[in-house]
Each structure stands twice: as C-alpha cells, then as structure tokens.
C-alpha cells in the first residue's frame, strides 16, 4: 500500500540516481515548496467551506448551497473573485510595510510547517528542538499583524493590532506551559520522539488529569493565539470593522484570511501531536490484536482525522461563545489560565518523578 513515506522515498532515490546530490537536494526543496503551497491552498478552500457550513448549521441556517453540488465550489468562486480584485494600497499607508505584512504572516505559517510530522516517517525536518521551534516561530506572526496595523495608518487597524499583540503575548504563556507539560512527560522536545512515546496510548489517556487540564488550556490558548472568536478582539467586526486587515483588499486580504486558517490547522496538528498521538493509531497498552487492527488505517489519515476533530471543536467555540472584552480576556489569562497551568505543571512534574503515568 503506497504510504506518504514510500512516495517520498521513491522520489528521493530516483532523484539521487538521476542527478548529482546537490541538484537532487535543490529539486527536492522546490518540490517541498510547491507541495506546501498546494497544501495551503487546499486547506484554505476546505477549511473555509467547512467553517461556513459548520457556522450555518449551528445557526440553524443552510449555508452556501448554490455553487456546484451542495455549494462545494463556493470557496473556489470566492478565491477567483479575490484574485481578480484590485489590491489597493491607501495613500497614507506606509507602502513597504503595508505590502510586506501579509507575506510575513504567510511565511511564518510556512516555516512552522517544517518540523510537523504528517505521517509515519514523513516529516520535512526532524530537528531535536521541534516543539520549541514551533512555539518560538509562531510568535513571529504577531509582528506581521502589528506591521499591518501600524502601516495601514488607520485607527481601527492599529487598535486591532495592539489588541492582538497583548493577546498573543499573554496567551503564549499558558500555551507554552501546557506544551511543557507534555515535554516533561516525554522528556524530549523532538517531535518524532514525542509521537513515539505515545505508541502505547495517547498522552491524553496516559497522563491522567494533568494531561487533560493541559489539553483544555492548550485549546483555549491556541484559540486566542490564532485570534479566533471568542478571542477575536483583533478583528472584532462589530467594533473595529475588520481590525488589522481593515485596509486590505484583493489578494493581500486573501493572504491574511488564508493565514488565519492555516494557523488553525497548524496549532491543531500540534495539539494532535502532543495530546492525541500525532499520526500514531489508537493503541491501548499491549492488546496486540486491537493495536494491529488500528494499524491498518494509514497514519496520515489518523493525523488528519485528529486534526480536523480539533478544528471542529475550535469552530464550535467560535459559533457558540460571545466575544470577550479586552479586560475579561486578560483576566482569564492572568487570573485563571496561568495559575492553573502553573499548578498543573507542578502536578505533572510530581507525576513524572514518581512514575505515576503509564
């Protein structure tokens, strides 16, 4: 059965036979870049469609249902529309930063893709500080947002960007602490080791209550970090028109829009990797018959299944909860999530030292 691992291997050997190793490496880099862009555009189309359908059903509506069978091509039509639209730059804007900002946000999302494992042995770069890399690079995207807000020369954009800055800086703490919880249990920052450590059960089952608390905090924190409702103060349609991307139009707006969904995808892959075993099929202890049965499902399907489950939960949040005020938002982080996750960290450390987890 052709798995992603085999396909990658075949391409790699064929290139190395046909060309010398430097050319082969360059061609591989191009292939990776093209497939990353392809993945992003596919994700954009699928996730936006999914969001619109989920939101419609949760609000007792039908959602898009005219373009193509059951409205499936609505997002394709929207993308076409955005591509032919004029990308305007306001007169008072700082032109260079204004045009640079969407690309920074997008490139950051692409860079985070590198250490993520999409299937068994299918990973671009398995560096030994993978989790740290993801956590640190993802905070660069706030620079893109601040840049967009500042360069737009518009009060709404600036307010949205400032809020986004405050929000990401504070929620990164609890996201980081909940990631550390799993790092303590695993004893490694390397993504492949983290996934391997879950071969006899996912951390959310093995880690008892601390892992569960960390999971909940992680989900809340990444919802805030990706600027999604109920933490979408950076956009806040009803207060700030569209927040930091008020002045953007055409393809530059589409890049921001796409970056939001790609970021959701990335944090959900991360959540799935840390708590739900990444591409690891559902295994329970040493029950080999059950484990083998689960291994028949390809590992990439496992990862995408888990990721889309998490994405659905985040969408569910968005269409259920009302937006928080900025003071409530910071209260929630500094008074509730941070103390809880610190306490949780102690608990996990104790657990890891005493060896109470499975």
């Amino acid at each position, binding site marked *: 059965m052709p798995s992603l691992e085999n396909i990658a291997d075949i391409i790699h050997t064929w290139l190395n036979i046909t060309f010398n190793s430097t050319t082969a490496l360059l061609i591989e880099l191009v292939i990776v870049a093209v497939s990353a862009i392809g993945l992003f555009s596919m994700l954009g189309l699928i996730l936006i469609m999914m969001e619109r359908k989920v939101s419609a*059903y949760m*609000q007792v*509506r*039908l959602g898009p249902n005219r373009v193509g069978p059951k409205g499936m091509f609505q997002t394709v039509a929207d993308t076409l529309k955005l591509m032919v639209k004029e990308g305007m730059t306001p007169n008072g804007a700082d032109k260079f930063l204004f045009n640079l900002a969407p690309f920074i946000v997008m490139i950051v999302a692409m860079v985070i893709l590198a250490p993520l494992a999409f299937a068994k042995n299918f990973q671009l770069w398995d560096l030994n500080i993978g989790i740290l890399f993801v956590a640190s690079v993802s905070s660069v995207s706030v620079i893109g947002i601040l840049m967009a807000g500042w360069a737009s020369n518009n009060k709404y954009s600036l307010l949205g960007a400032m809020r986004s800055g405050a929000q990401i800086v504070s929620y990164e703490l609890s996201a980081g602490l909940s990631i550390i919880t799993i790092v303590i249990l695993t004893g490694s920052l390397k993504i492949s080791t983290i996934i391997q450590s879950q071969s006899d059960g996912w951390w959310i089952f093995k880690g008892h209550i601390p892992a569960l608390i960390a999971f909940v905090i992680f989900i809340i924190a990444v919802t805030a970090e990706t600027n999604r409702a109920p933490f979408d103060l950076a956009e806040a349609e009803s207060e700030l028109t569209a927040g930091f991307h008020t002045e953007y139009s055409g393809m530059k707006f589409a890049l921001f829009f796409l970056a939001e969904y790609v970021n959701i995808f990335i944090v959900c892959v991360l959540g799935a990797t840390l708590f739900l075993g990444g591409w690891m099929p559902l295994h329970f202890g040493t029950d080999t018959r059950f484990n083998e049965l689960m291994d028949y499902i390809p590992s990439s399907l496992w990862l995408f299944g888990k990721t889309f489950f998490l994405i659905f939960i985040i969408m*569910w*949040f968005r269409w*259920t*909860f009302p937006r928080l005020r900025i003071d409530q938002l910071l209260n929630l982080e500094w008074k*509730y999530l941070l103390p809880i996750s610190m306490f949780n960290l102690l608990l996990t450390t104790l657990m890891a030292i005493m060896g109470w987890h499975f």
Partner: protein
Amino acid sequence: MFLKKYLQDIYYAVKSLLIGMRRTGYYFTHHKEIITQQYPDNKDSLSLPERFRGEVVMIHDENNEHACTGCTACELACPNATIKIITQIDTTPEGKKKKALNTFVYHLDLCTFCNLCIVACPTDAIKMANTFEHSVFDRSKLTKILNKPDSKIRAGIE
C-alpha cells in the same frame, strides 16, 4: 474562602459554556430545525409564520363589509404618515348625520411595518397580511386604497 469562590467561578463558567455548546451541538446534528426558506425555489410551498408583516390590509367579509368607522386612530398612530383616512358624512335612515369612511389611502412605500396602526384600531378593522412580493415598476402603484369599492361598514359597529 477565596479558593472556594475561585473554584466555584471556574465550575460555573465551564458549566455554562458547556450548556451553550450543547445547544449549538444539537442544532449542528439536527438539520430538521433549519428555518431557512429557499425562496424562489419553494414559491409553491412557502410557509410564512403567522406574525409575518407583509402589508396592511383591511378585513372584508363575504358581504363586502368592513369594520372601519373612519375614526382616524390609525392615521394618528402611524409614525410615518403612511395612512390617510378620507371621511364623508353619511345620513342614517333615521335622519341622523354620521361620520363614515370614504377612502382608506395606504402608502406602502412609506410603511415600516411597525404594527402600530393595527394595535391602535379600536374595531380591529385592519390587519397585517403575509404577502411580501411588492416590487412594481412605478412608485405610484404602491399607493393603495384599502377599502374595496362599494364596501360599507358592517351593521352594529360604532
């Protein structure tokens, strides 16, 4: 004491959020609750709720009789001057003079469908109808006369 309140806050917050998510989760899985009407497609089977406000009409019974006394309460209640009541003086068989409705002019283009006229009417002579396809090519077509030709007031309505 402080810790108790703190934990209580968390408990109630999580509980109320879960209640909200159960509601939306229910809607997500129960598609029969969807209230969207796919309008031009289901023109034949369109079902509008009773309270839908399409336009003001005057109720006429089978004898072409209505209940409007021409009291102009609706005209006074209307915030947009949508209604213009033109009255006439009738002479009853006993020789008494009495004010009665001549023409009920209704400017649909001015109406905000606020329902105030219907509430104001002491004899329930007018009501809101379900019709909503009001587009016309000429604005003057939106000025309507609500009392039908040759209709008269039902006996016994004061």
